[in-house]
């Protein structure tokens, strides 16, 4: 794995390494314990785009929520750059702007304009003046092709544009890690392909570690350095697939022979797990 990583521009990134070590999450809603995550260990080097692929409802989001600090873990530990996020003696991580989530249905505040949304993190931190923050926000919007929509409310622009605003809002805080929870699930396939290229473009400009949950294999292979294919519930890594298609990538990668080979390799495992999840009658989500 390290041999593959070394060829990529990833090595310049020094922060944002996530170490998930033997994490177990048991839900206990009605006295009946449900295991969502089962002794899961994943090592993500700084600056990697790590795609977590698995059937709906397998517990991928549980893992993401544990990293983000939305809920705790039962045992095991998660480290970010060697620092304990959660683990023994600290069941739940504290949410912070070093790990920012881009949500499945989008979570731009509809009552704030795009510019106010993007300025939100630094405004809360209160370390810069409002003028400085807004200058920076405008600059970042311009870089991401969002000029002209500063004073629109998120409800006034297309869903694809909203997702970009949300990513820029996260990047405003110089996060170490971006956590994506199937952010493009609700988009149509044409918008999706535009979004994929836009995301990569943003990634090449601001290298961060990306922890990206999806059940769309094509999306996973196109974006990721690595696919971690998860088993159906309880969730644990079943197979790791290296995507050795060189970055920067564009849409021609989709039709390459290598892409199809990787697709072939991953598809079998994914389908098997999807079938298992289907047979178990697991709820979508």
């Amino acid at each position, binding site marked *: 794995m390290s041999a593959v990583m070394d060829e990529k521009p990833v090595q310049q990134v020094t922060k944002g390494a996530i170490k998930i070590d033997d994490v177990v999450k048991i839900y206990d809603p009605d006295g009946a314990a449900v295991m969502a995550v089962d002794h899961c260990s994943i090592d993500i080097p700084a600056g990697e785009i790590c795609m977590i692929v698995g059937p709906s409802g397998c517990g991928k989001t549980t893992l993401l929520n544990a990293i983000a*600090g939305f809920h705790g873990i039962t045992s095991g530990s998660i480290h970010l750059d060697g620092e304990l996020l959660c683990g023994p003696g600290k069941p739940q991580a504290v949410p912070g702007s070093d790990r920012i989530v881009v949500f499945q249905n989008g979570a731009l505040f509809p009552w704030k304009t795009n510019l106010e949304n993007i300025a*939100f993190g630094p405004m809360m931190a209160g370390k810069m003046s409002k003028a400085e923050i807004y200058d920076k926000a405008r600059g970042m919007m311009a870089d991401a092709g969002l000029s*002209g929509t500063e004073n629109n*409310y998120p*409800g006034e622009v297309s869903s694809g544009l909203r997702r970009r605003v949300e990513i820029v809002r996260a990047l405003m805080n110089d996060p170490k890690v971006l956590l994506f929870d199937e952010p493009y699930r609700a988009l149509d396939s044409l918008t999706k392909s*535009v979004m994929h290229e836009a995301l990569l473009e943003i990634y090449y400009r601001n290298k961060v570690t990306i922890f990206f949950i999806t059940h769309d294999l094509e999306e996973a292979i196109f974006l990721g350095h690595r696919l971690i294919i998860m088993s159906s519930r309880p969730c644990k890594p079943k197979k790791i697939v290296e995507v050795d298609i060189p970055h920067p990538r564009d849409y021609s990668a989709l039709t390459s022979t290598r892409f199809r080979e990787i697709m072939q390799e991953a598809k079998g495992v994914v389908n098997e797990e999807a079938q298992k999840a289907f047979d178990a009658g697991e709820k979508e989500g």
Partner: protein
Amino acid sequence: MSSTMKTADVVTNTQGPEVSTLSLTMFRFASWLKSPRPYLMMIGFAIVLGFWYLAVEVWKLPRFEDMPGLTEVFSEWFSKDPYYGLSIFTPEYYLHIGISLRRIAYAFLLATCLGVPLGLFLGWSKNFREFIFPLFEVLRPIPILAWVPLAIIMFAGSESPVIFLTFLASFFATTLNTMLGVESIDESYSRAASCLGASRWQVFRHVVIPGAMPYIFTGLQISIGVAWFSLVAGEMVSGQYGLGYLINTAYMMIEYPKIIIGMITLGIIGFATSAMVRMLGDYLMQWRVRELALGD
């Protein structure tokens, strides 16, 4: 992509929220006039008024024969020298309206100032809700009329019992809707805010309050409606002056046209106050107005 940019351009051409609200209102009014809606509305009114006229004055239907007729009511209402002493030209008419409005204003403002914060905290803090909400849920279904004797015993004079009754109905509606508003907020918003480094208080300020706003204003709409309802009930049993008092005394003095004048006036003023609350809501929730405008 190109369609996105177009939308964006169109919207950013308007300058600031104030201008866009005004032009939006004008645009809406113009398209309303062009649509069949105003004419349908007039037909609706014509049918009801026509039926009233025919039923009472022409056909003299059973149960309608003792009712004041349309022409009698309207000629009294707009008369310079009204037979029963009440028309748009008599100061007494405006005294009744003014006193009712003043009571509504006190009660509604008090209910809003207490109900909105209480609702926000009920929705926001689980412990606080466990503590207050069951009590609230037992008090809320008690009809306002059941409070009348207590109100008269508790509050001295004739003014404060009426205001108290009006306040009570508004207060429950506002508090409950505000609480539901907080509960309706998608969890992703507060999670996103805490990801972006917001403290618990900042989440309250920047997510909970604006997120609950649509429900708060729904609550205030209901609140102003039930305020009028309980005001009239209160004025009928206690106090002097006011539209409820007017209707009740007209009934006792067998001055039937005055009842109808009071009722229609209540309808018009009730509608106007409700519209004012809605306009305030639109002003405070530009994002929603603009979102809905695009949806049309």
